[in-house]
């Protein structure tokens, strides 16, 4: 009975760990992808800035720290790009008498974290009309990831503690049942490890069985969700989701290590009292 309880507690702790783990990984991957897409800054330049002034600006920006690449986008090219993006509706832009788009620089950052510093520097320049970047979006995304990771870690720590406690109790019962034998062993001169290892193995087995159950539950659920998302929902979203096989492989390792660890520690804790003879 108690061993079912301990397997169950390890399994449920690991299932929740698995869910949190997958959430964090997927949001992380989303954040990483988003970072890649949003790590550019657009600097719009006033129309009166021309020729040498543009070159000077370009040179200044290039020297800023944390910049991967700077490219100049002339108003004509910008218009062409826009036409291309609008596709079928591109003809609407034909009717324009003057090109309303400004000249601009497109800056690729090495890391989105550098955005604020770079923007501050650029805003000091004369002739800059506007600076556009997406730090807010990415910041929010990172904040959410951070929160989930923190909440998840706390939750997991608590659950691991609880399952360790339950395993410790299970082993304690097993040890108490063999108290006589252990007592005799101590008098004959058995070392603590000689007495401990069978119980240690029992704990590890309980932990591992729990880990396998959790792995089955989490693995199949994730695969099911992944299939639904990729087949029925936007294909776009699925690009951000990590494929099931990759995740389950990682999870298998983590679960088994944790399950065995919980079992081992639980049994060692539970035996301490009995070995003090």
């Amino acid at each position, binding site marked *: 009975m108690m061993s079912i309880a301990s397997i169950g507690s390890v399994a449920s702790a690991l299932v929740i760990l698995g869910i949190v783990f997958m959430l964090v990984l997927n949001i992380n991957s989303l954040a990483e992808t988003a970072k890649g897409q949003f790590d550019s800054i657009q600097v719009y330049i006033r129309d009166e800035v021309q020729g040498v002034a543009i070159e000077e600006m370009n040179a200044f920006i290039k020297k800023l720290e944390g910049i991967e690449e700077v490219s100049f986008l002339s108003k004509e090219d910008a218009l062409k790009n826009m036409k291309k993006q609008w596709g079928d509706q591109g003809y609407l832009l034909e009717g324009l008498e003057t090109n309303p788009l400004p000249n601009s620089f497109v800056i690729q950052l090495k890391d989105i974290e550098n955005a604020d510093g770079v923007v501050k520097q650029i805003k000091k320049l004369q002739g800059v009309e506007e600076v556009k970047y997406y730090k807010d979006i990415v910041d929010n995304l990172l904040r959410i990831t951070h929160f989930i990771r923190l909440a998840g870690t706390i939750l997991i720590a608590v659950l691991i503690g609880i399952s360790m406690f339950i395993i410790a109790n299970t082993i304690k019962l097993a040890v108490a049942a063999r108290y006589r034998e252990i007592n005799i062993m101590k008098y*004959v001169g058995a070392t603590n490890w000689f007495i401990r290892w069978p119980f240690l193995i029992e704990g590890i087995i309980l932990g591992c069985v729990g880990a396998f159950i959790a792995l089955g539950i989490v693995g199949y659920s994730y695969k099911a969700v992944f299939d639904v998302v990729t087949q029925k929902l936007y294909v776009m979203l699925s690009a951000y989701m990590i494929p099931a096989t990759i995740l389950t492989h990682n999870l298998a390792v983590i679960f088994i290590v944790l399950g065995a660890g919980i079992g081992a520690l639980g049994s060692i804790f539970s035996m301490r009292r009995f070995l003090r003879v």
Partner: protein
Amino acid sequence: MIELVNVTKQYLNGMTALSNINIKIDKGDFVFLVGPSGAGKSTFIKLLLKEVDPTEGKIIIEGIDTTKLSRRKVPQLRRKMGVVFQDFRLLPNKTVYENVAFAMEIIEAHPKEIRRQVPMILSMVGLSDKSKMYPDQLSGGEQQRVSIARAIVNNPAVLIADEPTGNLDPDTAWEIMKLLKQINRRGTTVVMATHAKEIVDVMQQRVIALENGRIVRDDRKGVYGYED
């Protein structure tokens, strides 16, 4: 070979079980530890086994001060000693042979050695024909013989017996005493705590009498000396 120097044991509840004990037990001695209940006999035995540590003083066994021994080395110390209890403490789910072999398995003796040694010891205690029986199929005296066999199978230097005849009728008790004396003759030091007046009086061995945690008497060829 066993020496207690100014040993005092005070338990956490403030009770002083032994105070300022000085004693020397030589190799090959046969010692009776007598005294009324609560005199400190159990504590004395627990100290020898390092089940408890003294509050003060030194306990030297085979040249080693066991009070300075780390917890990890306790098994090594216990392997030098065999223990026999009043309640036998056999494993009910193991046969006579297995109970004795168990003591050798614990110290990780070679299986070949175990197969050689266990039958030899069983024949010495006179149980060769009962090696496949379980403890509950044996009489009290036979069970105590198994527990003695287990205590000496690893050839300890000291045999400690805590009221080994306490649960036995007089005739059986004498059988056990003969066995202990035989073991003693092979050179094993025997320390036996007991209430058995008749046995102590007849055996004429060294008697250490404890009262209220103090040694009140230590006679070579002594007698029990209490009327209880």
